[in-house]
């Protein structure tokens, strides 16, 4: 069975390298500000200003989860609902 649910999805092309190794830990350090400290990498100092803080890889994934849904075509049920708003047949539009 071939599932091509998110075909045509612009964001879906993004890849998510698995979290592993020192790069990630360093990134966590920077991104997580105070919380990052508990990951205990000695080599990188956490930066407290969160202006250009690198994010862990899953952060992009989170955005992608969201954007994947945003970019899905709207199911017909929503079009039906919107159409119903214009001509409320039975309910409270006194």
């Amino acid at each position, binding site marked *: 069975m071939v599932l091509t649910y998110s075909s045509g999805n612009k964001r879906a092309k993004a890849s998510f390298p698995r979290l*592993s190794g020192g790069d990630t830990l360093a990134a966590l350090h920077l991104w997580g500000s105070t919380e990052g400290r508990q990951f205990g990498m000695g080599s990188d100092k956490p930066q407290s200003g969160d202006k250009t803080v690198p994010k862990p890889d899953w952060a992009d994934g989170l955005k992608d*989860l969201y954007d994947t*849904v945003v970019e899905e075509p709207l199911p017909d049920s929503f079009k039906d609902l919107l159409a119903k708003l214009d001509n409320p047949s039975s309910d409270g539009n006194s």
Partner: protein
Amino acid sequence: MAETKRAAAQKLEFKRELEAVIPHLRAFARGLCGRPDMADDLVQEALLKAWAAQERFEPGTSMRAWTFVILRNAYLTDMRRNRFRGEYDESVAERILTAPASQEEPIHLSDLHRALLTLPPERREALLLVGAGGFSYEEAANICGCAIGTIKSRVGRARVALTSMMEEGSIPQRSLDDAGAHPAILQELESVANKSEEIAES
């Protein structure tokens, strides 16, 4: 008569804006409750409520933020009625959330989503709003009706939890079927819904 016309124009504009935020409502709802069909039901409910309450929307303000509040309230109400109990469907989530093949080892979005669903609801929604929806801490605080510091704390805790889950691969297989996790989630939600959310997590 001019007034009627203006009202009609406003109504039209309201509807146009409402329609424009539907994809965002769907994305937020999917993140909150996991199952796509349930999420869409929730969005439909929120849309109807928003439509009914349109007089209360201030033109020029953020329709997305306004409707997110409505969606969130609908979600909390439904959660309290246990509508989403045990509804997380892994096979559906897997199909929908797994990113198409990529070159490198992928983080499966389904893993991430599952991890997300194990977070306490208030942290999950804070992370969704800020980390996925792109709201500022202040906007997120307004949506959740709590202090900015509370949102920051929730987002921070959610990040730490997700990071450790993703890193250790310690993501529960089926979060909501987990005998231990689920009652805890519901219990936590109950307290969120019933009590004030102003209390910053220490």
